[in-house]
């Protein structure tokens, strides 16, 4: 194994801002007053908030030091399964920062922001093409809101037919937010169990589908990183009872340009632009979760929509069946610019992205399956799921493996998810990593498995290298300290 990148490094301590500074220090100087001083009205006087007095250099050092405590995909491999922590090319940041886009006020009249409207219009068409569906709204501001939009469309569709329905089928390998989105629209979630191979079986769906079920929410590829191979047969069963098929497309990074969701029988799909289309994410937003639909559901899409007229692009509210507005103005525009720029810069190579993401995950799966237990030994998509079963005898758990990876300079994978796999270790390398990096990750995982055999305390006491050692997560959760 090559030398590891994990070291102690030069990490500086940094106190809270309130523990820094001194009375009277400031980071600014105001110009000399050129009007007479006037007393403030009484209701505006009194004690201000408790802000510390700080100089400019203290503030800059504070945040610079904190930033060195951070780990991001710009620092190293970030194989956090289900999250698609891929590298976001900097050119897309540059386009998003162009002042014509970043400075456009949302209330600017349509004729003065034709470029921005054209970008939205074209992006929606590009996304429809990638999804294999007919119409798109980029208004939803995150994956879960895209799901909510999808469920509102389900409800609006059945209402419009005069036959509202009360239930929705959700497999146990769907994303955890799916049942919540459905419940917000008044649907009762009916769980569907996965088959023995980790994919959904048509018979399980058939047994539960009835005239009071609005449809199904399938995550495809599912949270085990497996492609739902029976998706067409399942869609046929749902459609035969006038239900609709929703696909959670949060795992789109595995199937861009490869899977035609329309032909697979999907009626509604959401895509996470912030995951798949080049927006840094994981920090709590902003995000963008466009909702894509088939032709017959287009009237229900959120409004306003960008339309193309002879006079140019315009925003139209003229969609009487629309589920309405989901976001102020037209969603998180900066993320749309990044996605548009990403798609144009990738061109036909967008398909290579998915192929490399899938190849990398399968490579890791094959290279580790003799030392880590693989619950579903079949070709995976963009991520692979192992368990800690082989380590149990040594008293070592998934958590210990994850913590030990930090010592070697890797961000840990997702652990204990999906819930249907006991002790899950979920690895998503994405397309961003070179073969050398992936080989280094594999060698590290193998060394950790060997350490578990020979000296489990190395794992139990990990991480040793970072500034902060293993946290007491239990006490932190039971007795949280939330002061600033």
């Amino acid at each position: 194994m090559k030398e590891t990148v994990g070291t102690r490094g030069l990490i500086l301590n940094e106190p809270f801002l309130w523990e820094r500074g001194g009375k009277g220090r400031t980071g600014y100087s105001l110009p000399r007053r050129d009007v007479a001083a006037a007393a403030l009205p009484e209701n505006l006087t009194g004690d201000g908030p408790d802000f510390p007095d700080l100089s400019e250099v203290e503030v800059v050092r504070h945040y610079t030091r904190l930033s060195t405590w951070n780990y991001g995909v710009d620092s190293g491999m970030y194989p956090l399964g289900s999250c698609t922590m891929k590298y976001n090319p900097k050119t897309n940041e540059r386009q998003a920062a162009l002042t014509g886009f970043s400075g456009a006020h949302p209330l600017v009249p349509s004729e003065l922001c034709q470029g921005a409207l054209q970008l939205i219009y074209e992006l929606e068409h590009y996304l429809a093409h990638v999804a294999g569906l007919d119409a798109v709204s980029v208004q939803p501001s995150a994956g879960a809101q895209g799901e909510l939009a999808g469920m509102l469309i389900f409800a609006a569709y059945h209402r419009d037919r005069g036959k509202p329905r009360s239930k929705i089928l959700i497999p146990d390998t769907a994303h955890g937010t799916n049942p919540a989105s459905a419940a917000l629209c008044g649907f009762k979630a009916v769980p569907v169990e996965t088959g023995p191979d980790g994919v959904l079986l048509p018979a399980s769906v058939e047994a539960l589908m009835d005239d009071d079920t609005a449809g199904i929410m399938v995550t495809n590829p599912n949270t085990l990183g497996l492609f739902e191979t029976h998706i067409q047969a399942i869609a046929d069963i749902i459609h035969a009872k006038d239900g609709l098929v929703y696909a959670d497309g949060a795992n789109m990074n595995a199937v861009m340009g490869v899977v035609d969701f329309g032909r697979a029988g999907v009626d509604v799909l959401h895509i996470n632009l912030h995951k798949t289309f080049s927006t840094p994410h994981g920090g709590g937003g902003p995000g963008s979760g466009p909702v894509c639909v088939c032709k017959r559901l287009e009237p229900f899409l959120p409004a306003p929509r960008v339309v193309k007229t002879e006079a140019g692009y315009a925003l139209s509210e003229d969609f009487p069946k629309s589920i309405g507005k989901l976001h102020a103005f037209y969603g998180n525009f900066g993320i749309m610019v990044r996605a548009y720029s990403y798609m144009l810069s990738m061109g036909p190579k967008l398909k290579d992205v998915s192929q490399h993401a899938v190849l990398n995950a399968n490579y890791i799966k094959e290279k580790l399956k003799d030392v880590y237990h693989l619950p579903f030994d079949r070709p995976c998509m963009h991520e692979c799921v192992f368990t800690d079963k082989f380590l149990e005898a040594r008293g070592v758990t998934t958590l210990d493996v994850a913590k030990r990876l930090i010592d070697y300079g890797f961000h840990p994978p997702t652990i204990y998810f999906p819930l249907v796999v006991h002790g899950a270790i979920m690895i998503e390398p994405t397309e961003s990593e070179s073969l050398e990096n992936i080989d280094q990750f594999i060698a590290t995982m193998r060394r950790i498995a060997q350490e578990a055999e020979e000296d489990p305390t190395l794992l139990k006491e990990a991480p040793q290298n970072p500034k902060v050692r293993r946290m007491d997560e239990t006490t932190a959760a039971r007795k949280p300290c939330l002061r600033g």
Partner: protein
Amino acid sequence: MKELSEVNLPEDIRYTKDHEWARKKGETFQIGITDFAQDQLGDIVFVELPEPGDRFESGEEFGTVESVKAVSELFMPMGGEVAAINEALEDAPELVNTAPHTEGWMLELKASDSSEYDQLMDRAAYLDMLKGLEE
């Protein structure tokens, strides 16, 4: 993680397939989660319970239990009305780990049909089920 032989399975309670237990206590039934369940979940940090007076059917979700690993749903072993909840769990959720069948009880139920209790698994049947899960 405990071996099956180490899991504490009292004789005086009945079990569900979702790893809840029920104990007959005079007119009411005490409900909680099993030692096997708490061991699988790991350190429990929060228990979300219903209000006294809430009504549930057998098998219906009545709350959630959050561990450092995950959040899991709690399902009613029997139908009825919640007579009381274990308020100690708000400040000391760890009672579910340390004493799942005693101080870590979750709620007391006025059963709508106490014959449902007899349909729950006894110790032997539950242990058989756990053995099946291990394979």
